[in-house]
């Protein structure tokens, strides 16, 4: 099922550089415990409703180190609905959804983020919120007797999301 391998090659060469990079991400290394049972697939809505997505196959590609098949502009990773069913079902506590999010971190490191997601990330990074506040919002709140929303202390948020200077703090 893993596509894109060179058919003339008999053996798979594991790309350990990719595996090491993924292991740097929080819970990225959990894929190592996957024994390919497929328990994560049955209740996965992205598998049910798309022809291309399958968490077991994604874990297999990770195990084989076929990262470049996953880290593409039109990556299937963003089909995941974050429902956590796979996390619930996996007997090995692989947390496939967390591995998928770690892979998305690698996509982001390569500057690949879907525009819809990028917009929300930017709103958060500039205002500390994902839903922008406007005068219309204040007016609506007033109608319900609710106080206006206070600005988020952005100096603190900015300080926190700044990467560590020596790059050593990615779990």
């Amino acid at each position, binding site marked *: 099922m893993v596509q894109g391998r060179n058919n003339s090659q008999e053996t798979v060469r594991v790309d350990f550089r990719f595996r090491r990079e993924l292991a740097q991400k929080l819970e990225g290394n959990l894929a190592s415990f996957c024994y390919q049972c497929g328990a994560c697939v049955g209740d996965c809505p992205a598998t049910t409703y798309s022809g291309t997505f399958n968490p077991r196959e994604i874990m297999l590609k990770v195990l084989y180190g076929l990262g470049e098949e996953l880290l593409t502009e039109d990556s299937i990773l963003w089909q995941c*609905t974050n429902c956590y069913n796979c996390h619930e079902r996996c007997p090995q506590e692989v947390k496939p959804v967390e591995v998928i999010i770690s892979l998305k971190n690698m996509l982001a490191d390569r500057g690949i983020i879907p525009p819809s997601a990028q917009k*929300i990330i930017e709103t958060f990074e500039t205002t500390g919120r994902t839903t922008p506040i406007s005068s219309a919002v204040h007016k609506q709140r007033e109608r319900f*007797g*609710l106080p206006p929303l206070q600005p*988020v202390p952005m100096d603190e948020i900015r300080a*926190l*999301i700044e990467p560590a200077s020596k790059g050593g703090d990615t779990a």
Partner: protein
Amino acid sequence: MKRFAFFPGCLIPARHPAMEFAIRSTLPKLGIEIVDLEGASCCPDPIYFKSKDKISWLAVAARNLCLAEDIGVDIFTNCSGCTATLSETYHLLQDLELRAQVNERLKRIGKEYRGTARVRHIATLVRDEVGYEVIRQSVVRPLEDLKVAIHYGCHLLKPSRIMQVDDPNNPTVLEHLVSALGANPVRHRNWYLCCGKACQTEEVPLNMMHDLLGAVCSEHADILCLICPTCYGQFDHGQMKVSRQFDEEFETPPIYYFQLLAFAQGVPYDKLGFERQRFKPECLRRFEMATAETAAPSSGDVHTE
């Protein structure tokens, strides 16, 4: 009164103030005092910002938890996304090595995470700290014969190893909460599906919502009860979109549980912001007429005591 820190997140305060109003109106009637958290930011969201950089996501979430730790109270959330982020953070930071790493970041702003503030979704909070019976007693307008379909969504229950709320394969908490209002909860055949909002392609959420709405519809429920503003968007605006795309008529009004509770506790229909919904729960008006006949004046103030 038991005191809890309210973590409202981004979506409810900005887009759905009626939901926040309902929370502030109902909790004091159940003996819960709401403590507002000063300086809280986005949780941050478990879909977008987490996908960019998990460690930064964890650091900002830990800062939000620190705000509650500093005043010595536990936190409740009102959105499944915030619940996901803050509960996972609480869980992950029990690992002392990771905690030390996050505290290195928090040191930049003079904070330290200690792991003393527990996180709960508001539905779990009222179940555990108030109880179904007290909720039942707070109802002045029993919603008899109201058929209520239930949507659990992603993160009230799952992952159960972290949430420890209810059996994820056969949950009952929302059914009990709805029954406490005198209404009849119904479980539809696709109850375990999430709302699909996190998915960044068209195909998956559209087809999934179609199946979900088909299941809800076949139960002929009066309303659909949910506990997350993101799910709400999928069932309000989203329901219209799916109806149009498939040329089918889905029209079950979605309601956030605490608005339904507020209504059952006597807050007038017209004060609950239902006119802003695309699918309006007009079916509730019959209970207002019934109570008007038996004359029970009620208040819709935010700080009712």
